[in-house]
């Protein structure tokens, strides 16, 4: 599979961490169609979507949806938006912010339980954060600098 071009602000190591995390999630939950990690401004970072799905469109739309949801959530005094759920006739799409820069989108089959899907996505997001923290720690210790990626 051709790897998507990485946005400049996302390192190859971070993209690899996203790849590994969504691979692990999809292996653990076969009732997920696929998943995608994208930047907050709509670029693909890592993707495991079925062939024929336009991942660039999904990444851009995920960015728009999460930004709009965040606006609605704040305007209605619900504070920060934790996730966005789209209920389609053929399953659920869940969008979850991994951190300020990344969003995780997962597409579930009709047989996938929504609660389970959200739980799987949270675990996946946490895994990505842990990996990126570990990478940042490694960079900081080798350069003597402090980190602040989130």
């Amino acid at each position, binding site marked *: 599979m051709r790897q998507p071009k990485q946005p400049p602000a996302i390192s190859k190591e971070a993209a690899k961490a996203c790849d590994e995390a969504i691979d692990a999630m999809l292996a653990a939950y076969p009732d997920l169609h696929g998943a995608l990690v994208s*930047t907050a401004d*709509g670029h693909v970072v890592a993707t495991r979507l079925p062939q024929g799905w336009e991942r660039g469109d999904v990444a851009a739309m995920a960015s*728009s949806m999460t*930004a*709009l949801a965040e606006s609605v959530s704040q305007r209605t005094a619900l504070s920060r938006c934790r996730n966005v759920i789209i209920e389609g006739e053929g399953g659920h799409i869940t969008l979850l912010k991994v951190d300020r820069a990344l969003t995780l989108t997962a597409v579930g089959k009709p047989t996938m339980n929504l609660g389970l899907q959200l739980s799987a996505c949270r675990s996946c997001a946490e895994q990505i954060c842990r990996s990126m923290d570990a990478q940042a720690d490694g960079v900081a210790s080798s350069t003597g600098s402090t980190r602040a990626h989130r």
Partner: protein
Amino acid sequence: MSAEIKIVFTGTVGAGKTTAIASVSDRPPVATDALATDDTGALKPTTTVALDYGEMRLPDGDKLRLYGTPGQHRFRFMWEILAKGALGFVILVDNTRPSPLEDLAGYLDNFGPWIERSAAVVGVTHGEYCRGPDLEQYHEFISRREAAHPVMFTDPRQPRHVITLMDTLLAALEFSTASADGAPET
């Protein structure tokens, strides 16, 4: 009875769409900014990824609903969503970009079907003193496309500039409506 008029601000990344709406909105505008992770980051730290929204009440009681589009082509689906029902378009072009006229052509093409049924005004931002095209070149370019959209230099940070853009757009709308009313039936 007062009317509500939907106006869409579109144009290149960093041209000043979000700023223009914020300049004139009577209420705190809705913005959907996200951290810019690509070349846009060199221009500004965040970028619009869904829409901007503001409102402006006119002296006669009519209300302008102002929508801003994301500038990047990958958000084209938002352009189509936002263009529906719009009565007018403000196209902002950053005159410091490599090919501002090509940029303008892209937006005129993309919004063409909607602009044909409404009106558009072009605001050229980021300096009339840079090496970009002058107003005459813009007018010539638009004329070659057999259109007659008003063009002016504008500073989106200045409310009076943005109000001038919208006054011009509303006048163009009235003219196009009057022309359509007076046009002989075929």
